[in-house]
């Protein structure tokens, strides 16, 4: 395929500058994202076991709820029946310790019944390590508040999209010649270039999905706000519909009219066989009715969330009220959109897919690293050709920052994961953040200050002068 040489040159420049602006941030996003594929198991692994009795059988949940409502009347407003208790969410029922504020539920209280039938309540204590790595992924490793990191992430995602478009354009003309070329012995430049092209081309669909979904994650609220202005005055909220909820007699005050959780699970299993519910989240709407949102998994289909699909269910009958996000029961349009989310989260096809995504994510991180190496090598060659004996400041800085940044990110994540496993009780939010950034910055400092790092440059200079002596090249 032929593309005009001036267009190729334009896009080669765009690709290298966009890559250099976003590469290191994307490295963190991909590395932390790859780890976050197993955020839940890692969270369980790094969370200390709460000292509380095992969860009561599901059939005894009504008895447990009665006791909870007597001791904690505010739990009636908002509580979750846990169908698959684990270390992060032990007990059978959980509810917010404080009235929830929007999407932020704050700390949860979890409860079960002791062997003597007495109520046992604890505050949920989730280790922050796995969540911190997820936030590194979402914030590209920058310690910024969400309101700033979100648009920053969006801008980087746009740059990433630009890098993909320009990368494809410059690779197309040499596609046939270079696709399966992998020149190990012919000097580091060819090696990094071949590796970069190989990773980029074979994971291109993955990268396209990641770039587009990230743009959407960053900018969906403003876009919906524009739509709201254009098409009608809807408030910008994309929570699932709770239109049909069951009005409750205020004197009943809660459970009696509702189906017991065990029966509800049976009813749900009939209505949506293969969907394995994990939590039943009950909440009271403004009109005094109860709403029920069921989260769960179905490895045969794409899931809308990172680990779950959702259904709105009538809490009195178990009938499915809204299946817009219920795997396998979505209408075609919603199912297509769900595929985009699932392709970002790797939430389809179960654990095998997640491992595949770990590989793809790490390969992505390696691709960004090789991109930076290529940029440094190209600038060095140009600077040597111009007669400079040493790296210019930007080249030297990036030649040292790139390995420092990558090592810092990998080492920081390793240290906090190891510490989270070894001393889970010590890991508070501040400790995790402090340790990660201390390791990260130390690695960068070591690489920046290390005296021998210019050796690579000299090596390259020697080699280029040698190759100048050999006219046959």
């Amino acid at each position, binding site marked *: 395929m032929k593309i005009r040489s001036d267009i190729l040159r334009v896009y080669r420049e765009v690709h290298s500058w966009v890559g250099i602006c976003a590469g290191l941030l994307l490295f963190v996003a991909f590395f932390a994202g790859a780890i976050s594929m197993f955020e839940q198991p890692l969270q369980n692994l790094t969370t200390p076991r709460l000292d509380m009795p095992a969860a009561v059988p599901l059939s005894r949940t009504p008895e447990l709820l009665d006791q909870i409502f007597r001791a904690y009347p505010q739990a009636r407003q908002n509580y979750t029946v846990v169908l698959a208790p684990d270390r992060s969410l032990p007990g059978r029922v959980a509810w917010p310790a404080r009235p929830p504020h929007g999407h932020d539920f704050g700390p949860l209280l979890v409860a079960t019944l002791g062997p003597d039938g007495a109520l046992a309540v604890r505050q949920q204590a989730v280790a922050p390590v796995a969540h911190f790595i997820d936030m590194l992924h979402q914030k590209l490793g920058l310690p910024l508040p969400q309101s700033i990191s979100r648009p920053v992430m969006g801008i980087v995602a746009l740059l990433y999209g630009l890098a993909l*478009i320009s990368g494809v354009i410059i690779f197309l003309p040499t596609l046939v010649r270079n696709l399966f070329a992998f020149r190990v012995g012919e000097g580091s430049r060819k090696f990094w270039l071949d590796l970069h092209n190989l990773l980029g081309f074979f994971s291109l669909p993955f990268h396209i999905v990641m770039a587009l979904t990230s743009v959407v994650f960053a900018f969906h609220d403003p876009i919906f706000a524009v739509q709201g202005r254009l098409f009608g005055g*809807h408030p910008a909220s994309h929570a699932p519909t709770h239109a049909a909820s069951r009005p409750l007699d205020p004197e009943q005050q809660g459970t009696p009219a509702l189906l017991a959780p065990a029966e509800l699970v049976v009813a749900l299993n009939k209505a949506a066989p293969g969907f394995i519910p994990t939590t039943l989240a009950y909440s009271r709407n403004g009109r005094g009715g109860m709403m029920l949102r069921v989260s769960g998994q179905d490895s045969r289909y794409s899931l809308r969330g990172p680990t779950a699909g959702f259904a709105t269910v009538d809490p009195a009958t178990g009938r499915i009220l809204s299946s817009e996000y219920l795997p396998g029961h979505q209408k075609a349009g919603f199912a297509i959109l769900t595929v*985009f989310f699932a392709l970002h989260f790797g939430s389809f096809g179960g654990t095998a897919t997640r491992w595949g995504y770990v590989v793809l994510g790490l390969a992505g991180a390696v691709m960004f690293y090789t991109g930076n190496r290529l940029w440094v090598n190209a600038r060095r060659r140009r600077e040597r050709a111009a007669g400079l004996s040493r790296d210019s400041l930007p080249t030297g800085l990036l030649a040292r920052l790139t390995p420092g940044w990558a090592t810092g990110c990998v080492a920081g994540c390793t240290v906090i994961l190891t510490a989270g496993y070894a001393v889970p009780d010590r890991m508070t939010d501040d400790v995790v953040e402090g340790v990660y950034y201390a390791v990260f910055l130390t690695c960068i400092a070591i690489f920046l200050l290390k005296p021998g790092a210019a050796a690579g440059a000299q090596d390259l200079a020697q080699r280029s002068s040698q190759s100048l002596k050999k006219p046959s090249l």
Partner: protein
Amino acid sequence: MTEAPHALDNRQWIAKVLAAILPGLGLVFAVMAILGRLAGTTGDPRSLPAQALMWLTAVLWVFVLGTCFLFSTGRQAWAVLGGACAALWGCFLLLRLFLS
């Protein structure tokens, strides 16, 4: 490959990128507005048309950003994207007039 008479370069990249960001985004929103009006969407973020349009907007914007470097000058980028933006918003206003 021969060089074209006016070889493309990146000298005016700031103007081109700004054109893709400002009138380019306006253009993309105009496409969203017209399609949304034709489909009769309510703009409710929970509805399928609103979500599909949101995705379309993001994809188109990335596309405009990726192709803005092909304009020969910054002025041309602003003229084409700005002109298209104004024209499509004009279409949208007309459409609203006739459909309401």
